[in-house]
């Protein structure tokens, strides 16, 4: 599956170099056998002319270049177009096709934040993530401390990301452990009724679509 390749940019380089204030925990080193296997298969595929080195480089570049803007566009479209939102929540394949995205054989599951529920996504087994939309996951998403604690003590993890959810709101954790990939549809902030799509897109962050924070507040935006 294209989702499980090991050729990430932070492969082996995310030990102790995280300066964003989040809790740091050394993971076990990646399996040497797995690294050798990946290198061997990749080199064999290139040698046999099945893919070229440039094909691989380009695929990584394409994935790496996906920031949050595509996801933000999808979120804003759902905020401003009720018919699209309904499609996104019930027939995500069709909704994504409107953006030229085909995630098959995986399927997108969009979980909507409401007054009553705050959603958060994790893959406890590995690092399943909606890569065709959001690109490469952040290093902390792949680390064992996030993957173990998000299901076990989500509110504590959220607080460490600076996100406090009142007890009146349910925290719902989604373990992305099989064939679905998840995006959180954050709540549209009040006071944005007159905003253009472009302005709204500036509010939507990657972390709000993973569910560890909410969208940017109105006063976070300059101009």
């Amino acid at each position, binding site marked *: 599956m294209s989702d499980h390749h090991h050729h990430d940019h932070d492969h082996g380089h995310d030990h102790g170099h995280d300066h964003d204030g989040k809790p740091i925990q050394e993971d076990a080193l990646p399996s040497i056998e797995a690294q050798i296997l990946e290198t061997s298969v990749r080199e064999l595929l290139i040698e046999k002319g099945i893919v070229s080195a440039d094909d691989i480089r380009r695929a990584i570049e394409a994935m790496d270049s996906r920031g949050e803007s595509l996801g933000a566009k999808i979120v804003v479209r759902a905020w401003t177009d009720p018919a699209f939102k309904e499609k996104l929540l019930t027939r995500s394949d069709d909704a994504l096709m409107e953006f030229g995205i085909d995630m098959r*054989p995986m399927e997108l599951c969009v979980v909507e934040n409401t007054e009553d529920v705050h959603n958060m996504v994790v893959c406890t087994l590995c690092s399943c993530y909606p890569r065709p939309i959001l690109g490469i996951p952040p290093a902390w998403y792949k680390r064992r401390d996030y993957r173990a604690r998000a299901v076990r003590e989500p*509110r504590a993890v959220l607080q460490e990301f600076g996100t406090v959810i009142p007890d009146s709101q*349910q*925290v719902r954790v*989604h373990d992305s*452990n*099989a*064939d679905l990939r998840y995006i959180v549809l954050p709540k549209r902030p009040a006071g944005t009724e007159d905003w253009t799509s472009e302005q709204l897109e500036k509010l939507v962050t990657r972390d709000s679509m993973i569910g560890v924070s909410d969208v940017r507040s109105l006063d976070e935006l300059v101009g």
Partner: protein
Amino acid sequence: MESRYKPGDKIRILQRNQPGHVRTPIYVRGKTGVIERIVGSFPNPETLAYGHSGLPYKMLYRVNFRQGELWPDYEGSPDDTLEIEIYEHWMAPA
């Protein structure tokens, strides 16, 4: 393909002692939850992982659990829940 369960059904996750590639984490085994939706049928990852065809397809569901059911000393709100994808052969009616 027929699905055995439907949304709203109470089910219990089986305690299968199954080595190899499984996608049912230990923290939900033996626990009782509710079917949130039928996802659809997919190749069986447990055999696909070892180079087999993954046939016959298995039915996949999303299951909702109360966090208090999963973790005896859960410290969040009693309303907190967790949702996860579970294959039909890992469930029994509760």
